[in-house]
């Protein structure tokens, strides 16, 4: 334990503003503040009992027993009330069920990540579907030509429609049921259609207009239910497309605006402030960052040579009075950064530190070889005159390239220094996942 901890604890206790660190008194503190009334993300039926249990500090099982008992008592009470002719019979059952629905609707789900799954254990759509199936069976069994409308047919329609709606509106968001929601919907629609189909001829033969109308309505519902998903999917896809197009348009509008205003201003600042000044350096770095964001959509974590070189350039421009231009030709974006990037970084650090001013990085990838050239405009130096103790160029550029199976060379004269790096393509790794996009992004790659 560090010395600071006890002191902090003592201070907290003295202030009384924080719960004391003593673990024994923690439950007492927790019981004072009730957890909020929220339904968990993973629920049994609706999460109402779980929410109540957590909020009140009871066990879930007990709350469930009480809830079921309440409904049972209310139902019993309602039955008795109905028997003796009390008009409150429905309200009595309704009260408990209403409380349940009330909490279901008003108690929010536990907050979490927006894409965190919300699941329930009870397959409501399936239960409704089974109930609809039973009702449909009842319709077929209990069918009497004397009845004004087939018993159970309305129930079948309502239950199947409920199952359909539930699996269409709620289940798609639930990873547990999303898989078979389409099948549930198809069966529900087919069930309604089947009942309608069986009712129709009989109703027509026996001349029962109401049954015939019901049958036709069922058939129409079935058709609608079967046709709706693909139609809806198409509408959703189209509106998503439209939204994406609108987003793109807005983005390019913003890009155009920033291009005409901010980027111009940054360029003017760089020009007016002079190449080597602090202000120009910041403006340059800012410009690069903004430009990358606006146009390239570059992934800063892609481990390819092109991205790596640009990242190194940006970092060095912030630290040193230097302007680094990175030019890439061929599918440099498909080359794993590795030793080439390491050697190039060393060369660039040298150029930024000793030469400054304008530095050009040229990277070219052909099918046989990858080359990187780093050229600065400094006073130059004699590479052979660098003392052995200095690792700089000799070890970290030439040595590194040799170890990687390539070559490194340094030429320097009064006009500047150029570091030349060369690595056979077979010795260079392939950047993961960027091979296809890397070649497609370059016009030359498609020749």
């Amino acid at each position, binding site marked *: 334990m560090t010395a600071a901890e006890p002191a902090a604890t003592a201070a907290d206790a003295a202030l009384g503003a924080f719960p004391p660190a003593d673990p024994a008194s923690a439950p007492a503190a927790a019981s004072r503040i009730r957890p909020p009334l929220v339904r968990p993300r993973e629920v049994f039926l609706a999460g109402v009992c779980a929410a109540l249990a957590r909020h009140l500090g009871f066990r879930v099982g007990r709350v469930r027993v009480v809830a079921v008992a309440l409904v049972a008592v209310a139902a019993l009470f309602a039955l008795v009330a109905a028997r003796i002719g009390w008009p409150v019979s429905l309200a009595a059952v309704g009260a408990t069920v209403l409380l349940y629905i009330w909490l279901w609707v008003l108690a929010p789900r536990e907050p979490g990540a927006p894409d965190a799954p919300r699941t329930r254990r009870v397959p409501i759509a399936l239960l409704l579907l089974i109930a609809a199936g039973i009702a449909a069976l009842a319709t077929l069994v209990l069918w009497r030509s004397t009845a004004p409308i087939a018993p159970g047919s309305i129930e079948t329609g309502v239950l199947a429609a409920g199952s359909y709606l539930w699996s269409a509106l709620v289940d798609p968001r639930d990873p547990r049921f999303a898989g078979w929601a389409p099948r549930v919907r198809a069966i529900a629609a087919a069930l309604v259609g089947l009942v309608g189909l069986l009712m129709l001829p009989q109703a027509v033969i026996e001349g029962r207009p109401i049954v015939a109308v019901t049958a036709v309505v069922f058939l129409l519902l079935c058709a609608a239910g079967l046709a709706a998903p693909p139609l809806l999917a198409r509408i959703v896809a189209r509106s998503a497309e439209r939204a994406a197009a609108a987003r793109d348009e807005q983005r390019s509008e913003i890009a155009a605006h920033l291009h005409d205003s901010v980027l111009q201003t940054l360029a003017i600042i760089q*020009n007016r402030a002079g190449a080597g000044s602090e202000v120009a350096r910041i403006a340059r770095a800012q410009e690069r960052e903004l430009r990358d964001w606006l146009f390239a959509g570059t992934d800063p974590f892609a481990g390819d040579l092109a991205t790596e070189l640009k990242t190194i350039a940006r970092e060095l421009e912030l630290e040193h009075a230097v302007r680094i*231009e990175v*030019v890439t030709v061929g599918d440099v974006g498909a080359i794993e950064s590795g030793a080439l990037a390491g050697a190039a970084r060393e060369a660039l650090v040298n150029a930024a530190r000793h030469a400054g001013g304008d530095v050009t990085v*040229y990277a*070219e990838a052909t099918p046989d070889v990858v080359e990187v*050239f780093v050229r600065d405009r400094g006073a130059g130096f004699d590479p052979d005159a660098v003392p052995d103790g200095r690792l700089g160029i000799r070890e970290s550029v030439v040595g590194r390239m040799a170890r990687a199976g390539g070559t490194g060379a340094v030429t320097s004269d009064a006009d500047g220094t150029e570091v030349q790096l060369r690595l056979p393509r077979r010795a260079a790794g392939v950047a993961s996942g960027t091979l296809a996009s890397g070649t497609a992004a370059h016009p*030359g790659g498609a*020749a």
Partner: protein
Amino acid sequence: MTRVLIVDDHSIFRTGLRTDLGGAVEVVGEAGDVDAAVRSIAELRPDVVLLDVHLPGGAGGGGAEVVRRSAALLGEVRFLALSVSDSAEDVVGVIRAGARGYITKATSGADVAAAVVTVAAGDAVFSPRLAGFVLDAFGTAAGAPAVATRDDELDRLSAREQEVMRLIARGYAYKEVASHLYISIKTVETHVSSVLRKLQLSSRHELTAWALERRLL
């Protein structure tokens, strides 16, 4: 002395550039949008127009539109594109319209003056990035140097032109390219001008596809 017209919609930039150019060239006028630029060019007949790529006015075509609308004067007036960025994408449209090169707005006054003189002499001004774009667009790096289906001569670079472009992309000045390849500066300039012509006239798929994508055709 070379007579220069500065076309840019930012007055601060125009003023700054005018000051920077100093006595090296003669600035005969300024214009802030496409229509004013076309008018001034027809009126003043400058030797070189320093032309911002992004310009308001006209049909919205920016600098490229100015060059196209002044096409009748291309023999007499030369255009040097000024771009806020190094990205070839910004510039190739103006180059293909007829500009003889480009420099970025962050270029120092002395370098701008040098580029103006180069362009006035009928030569082209290539930056490393434009050279890189040319190498990419003509598919030299991809190994299969341009399966020429149409105009052979316009659709690929000669070996020498490729070498020159590669050195420019590596940051070499014309003088350094010349000494590196043991040729005269004049020869380097000839190669660069020839590449510029190909860049302007080639119907290579990459260039036209690029232009189509940006609705330049």
